[in-house]
């Protein structure tokens, strides 16, 4: 009760010193060098905090938070949608997901008039099919698009239920308070599909019994066909459809033997969780974060720091760890340009979603203006030699 009141007060009296407009539904984030952040915003069920650090020349991580109506018509159901899309081989697939997945989800929610596992599965499938047709259309002009893909982590909070869908190795972690001790424990909500996990390798072997080289240890890292660490993704069409695994695709992506069955899967792992009053927050992040922080370390950082800027704090903690591993100073790591920066850490996206009220009354839902924010970054086209931008306002939608 009291904490709910405090949150309300906090929401009303937030300091305006952060230097950017926070009113309206389109309040974007800030870009500061390679860091993009939105320290605090309001979703239907509480606050959120978001941060992205870029390492690649073109940001491959894409992300979004959408709160309000989850269907094409404004009659609801209402809730919050979070997406983390960690691209590989280029930014095309993750951008495509960012542009299409939520629209598909709204369309299927309208058709079925409710949120469900089936709606999420269909939205992901439609997105995958959409991207495959993009590859088919562009194949003759830019065949390398067949070797671009993306992990895809989705969270939907709707009517006290949390749906988590995942393909790849991004991760959602819940911070749940233990009443007796007051501790906040980390609970991983998403299943992961990385060949570094033994059960994933076993699964791949059982799906491809005739191929002893379905997973190969390369540079001390397990890779599917020696090429890719994840076993599920959106895109990566060259490992799903044999007709795109041929010249003029680069030789390093071409398999020696033609395949009949898709090597990578586009079937998401989806789980349903009923939110409890002691569920405090959920951390959604790409593997750039989890490479450096354990689930409990991340939950502790969020629990022990102010809400505003918690995502940025997680990103900083991960970069400090990355600097330590590379035997250099954090302050120096931050000076390295995008592109070269990829040798020191990965693109990293973090969204922290606080769960202040799992049950929202109809009146407050109707008053909520809706919000749509996308994680930013510097995305100059190829061959552009413009200098890095100074901190500027960028639109969040």
């Amino acid at each position, binding site marked *: 009760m009291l904490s709910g009141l405090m949150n309300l007060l906090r929401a009303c009296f937030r300091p305006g010193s952060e230097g950017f407009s926070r009113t309206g539904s389109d309040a974007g984030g800030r870009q500061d060098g390679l860091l993009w952040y939105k320290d605090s915003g309001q979703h239907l069920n509480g606050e959120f905090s978001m941060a992205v650090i870029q390492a690649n020349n073109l940001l491959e991580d894409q992300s979004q938070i959408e709160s309000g109506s989850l269907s094409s018509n404004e009659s609801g159901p209402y809730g919050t949608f979070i997406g983390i899309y960690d691209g590989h081989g280029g930014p095309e697939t993750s951008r495509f997901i960012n542009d299409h997945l939520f629209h598909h989800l709204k369309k299927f929610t309208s058709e079925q008039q409710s949120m469900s596992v089936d709606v999420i599965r269909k939205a992901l499938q439609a997105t995958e099919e959409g991207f495959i047709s993009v590859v088919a259309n562009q194949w003759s002009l830019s065949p390398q698009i067949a070797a671009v893909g993306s992990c895809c982590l989705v969270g939907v909070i709707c009517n006290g239920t949390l749906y988590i869908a995942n393909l790849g190795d991004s991760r959602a972690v819940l911070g749940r308070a233990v009443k007796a001790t007051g501790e906040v424990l980390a609970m991983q909500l998403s299943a992961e599909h990385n060949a570094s996990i033994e059960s994933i390798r076993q699964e791949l072997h059982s799906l491809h019994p005739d191929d002893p080289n379905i997973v190969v240890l390369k540079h001390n890292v397990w890779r599917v066909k020696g090429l890719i660490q994840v076993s599920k993704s959106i895109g990566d069409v060259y490992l799903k459809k044999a007709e795109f695994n041929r010249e003029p695709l680069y030789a390093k992506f071409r398999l020696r033997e033609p395949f009949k069955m898709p090597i990578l899967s586009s079937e998401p792992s989806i789980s349903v969780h009923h939110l409890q009053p002691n569920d405090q927050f959920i951390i959604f992040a790409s593997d750039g974060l989890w490479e450096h922080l354990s689930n409990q370390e991340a939950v502790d950082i969020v629990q022990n720091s102010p809400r505003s800027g918690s995502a940025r704090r997680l990103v900083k903690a991960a970069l400090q760890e990355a600097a330590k591993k590379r035997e250099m*100073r954090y*302050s*120096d790591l931050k000076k390295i340009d995008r592109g070269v920066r990829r040798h020191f850490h990965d693109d990293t996206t973090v969204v922290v979603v606080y769960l202040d009220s799992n049950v929202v009354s109809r009146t407050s839902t109707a008053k909520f203006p809706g919000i749509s924010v996308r994680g930013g970054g510097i995305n100059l086209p190829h061959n552009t030699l413009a200098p890095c931008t100074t901190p500027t306002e960028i639109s969040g939608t």
Partner: protein
Amino acid sequence: MISAKRLIEMARKWQKMAAGKRKRISYPRHHNLHSSAPNKGHFVVYSVDHKRFVVPLKYLTTNVFKELLNWSEEEFGLPSNGPITLPCDSIFLEYVISLIREHVPEEVEKALITSMVTCHHLASSSSSSSSSSRMIIYGF
């Protein structure tokens, strides 16, 4: 264009260093001697023979280092849990660093990258080569 005289000079210097008798010219330190705080304004790379190099941050903007890093990614992948190892031996790396320190002209830098790429392909194509023979190729 780079003069023939300069090229010959480069090649001599290179051969001399490859002989391995030359006194260390750069900052290599041994693997386990770096307990102190990292140097400000520097980053760290290791050579394949486990020598540690503390290199000024601005060297990351040179094409030679960018090429070496890409080459390292191809050879060893991106290390998730430790420092960067460049796929060349300490003698070669010392030479690279000394060239950058002396602000060699762009042509020399290009020649160096070309020779690196050639050696890289030589080494990659000879799949049976042992790590010691690779080191000889990298180091000339």
